[in-house]
């Protein structure tokens, strides 16, 4: 059935695929997750703030970014960031921003919207009584958030945050529109060079399937464990 296919192409190129391509994908996923969770948590705190302008700004930000396709955002940032950078440092020429930095900024800003909504639900799942108890022993807003609310909210939301990270891991492949060598980008370069499109894309799909499936099993295990601890 596979006669006519040449799977040796994988053997020839796997180092490039994993050490260049997958390395970029994983690095971007992990950094964007960290940045996205931190920024998303700040956005969630703003959205839940009693200071109306803060809540409005965060709400608008989240709703606008969530209603724009990710590919567009990637394009936009890639071409706009050099100009925004120039404006920030008051330079006349657009500053050079590397592909990784630009992608990291894009994904952090974009994924933060989704992490924000998860953390918002997480924060709201903590009872008012816990917040009152924090204030009652003399903690201020930031201490109550940092010591009481966020640790519990985060713990409740870990499975959903990880599930969102699996989505992020897949979304990262969209950077191919910028001809960046992520896992998919690397594979498609090899595929076109060697004329082995079917083999390469099948392999890529398989790798994505295996890693995402393994991750989701892990999430499920974690969920069960957290449920016991609580």
């Amino acid at each position, binding site marked *: 059935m596979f006669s006519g296919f040449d799977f040796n192409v994988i053997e020839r190129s796997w180092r490039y695929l994993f050490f260049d391509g997958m390395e970029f994908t994983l690095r971007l996923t992990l950094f964007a997750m960290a940045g996205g969770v931190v920024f998303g948590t700040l956005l969630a705190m703003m959205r839940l703030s009693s200071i109306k302008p803060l809540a409005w700004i965060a709400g608008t930000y989240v709703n606008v970014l969530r209603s724009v396709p990710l590919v567009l955002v990637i394009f936009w940032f890639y071409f706009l960031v050099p100009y925004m950078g120039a404006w920030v440092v008051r330079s006349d020429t657009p500053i050079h921003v590397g592909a990784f930095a630009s992608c990291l900024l894009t994904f952090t800003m974009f994924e933060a919207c989704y992490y924000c909504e998860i953390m918002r639900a997480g924060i709201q799942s903590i009872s008012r009584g816990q917040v*009152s108890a924090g204030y009652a*022993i003399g*903690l201020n807003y930031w201490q109550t958030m940092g*010591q009481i609310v966020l640790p519990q909210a985060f713990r409740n939301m870990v499975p959903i945050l990880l599930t969102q990270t699996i989505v992020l891991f897949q979304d990262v492949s969209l950077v191919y529109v910028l001809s960046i060598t992520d896992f998919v980008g690397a594979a498609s370069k090899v595929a076109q060079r060697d004329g082995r499109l079917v083999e390469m894309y099948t392999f890529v799909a398989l790798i994505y399937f295996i890693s995402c499936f393994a991750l989701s099993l892990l999430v499920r295990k974690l969920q069960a464990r957290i449920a016991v601890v609580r």
Partner: protein
Amino acid sequence: MIEIKDISKWYGTFQVLTQCSTRVSKGEVVVVCGPSGSGKSTLIKCVNGLEPFQKGEIRVDGISVGDPKTNLPKLRARIGMVFQNFELFPHMTVSQNLTLAQVKVLGRSQEAALAKGMALLDRVGLKAQADKHPGNLSGGQQQRVAIARALCMDPIAMLFDEPTSALDPEMINEVLDVMVQLAQEGMTMMCVTHEMGFARRVAHRVIFMDHGSIVEDATKDDFFGKPRSERAQQFLSKILHH
């Protein structure tokens, strides 16, 4: 110690508190009772600024609670509060619950905070539970830890909001015993509770609330002897025949 002057509070257009005034002197134990929804919790939460109020003034140790210039966290650190649902921090061990605010708010060292926490835990009879999480304790034990947590801050007054009403009957006394002891040591206390046995034993005054107003504010003997208002009489007879 606690002076409440003409407090009124609204949730939207709904008036929860109507011109409530009372005072709790140093070393005095005041019990607040009244039917459900009469505003007892709201009133006691106004005392440490957990709930804002629109009219009137509350002073604790001379400091105005409603004044925007008041450092509320600092004031609250000096007022202990015990909640109906304990509200221990479930992600921390008992000893972490006890030391958190001592270290973060009072700036005590970890060792000093732990020593203080252990001493108070011992006092409520739970020294052996220090390393457990609150979820592994019974309701009565949790509430005693919550009292110890408040006492760790060396409070000048203690507020209790129905500390025993979420407890199984057999656990009520272990909590009340701690409160009685506290009262006998001269702690200033404002307790929302329906435990009239507790009120009889240690209260100096009893306040009866209904529909957001303080209907009766009498010495213990007057209150139990001859409550003036009919509503308080009805309430008492209902509660005492339980």
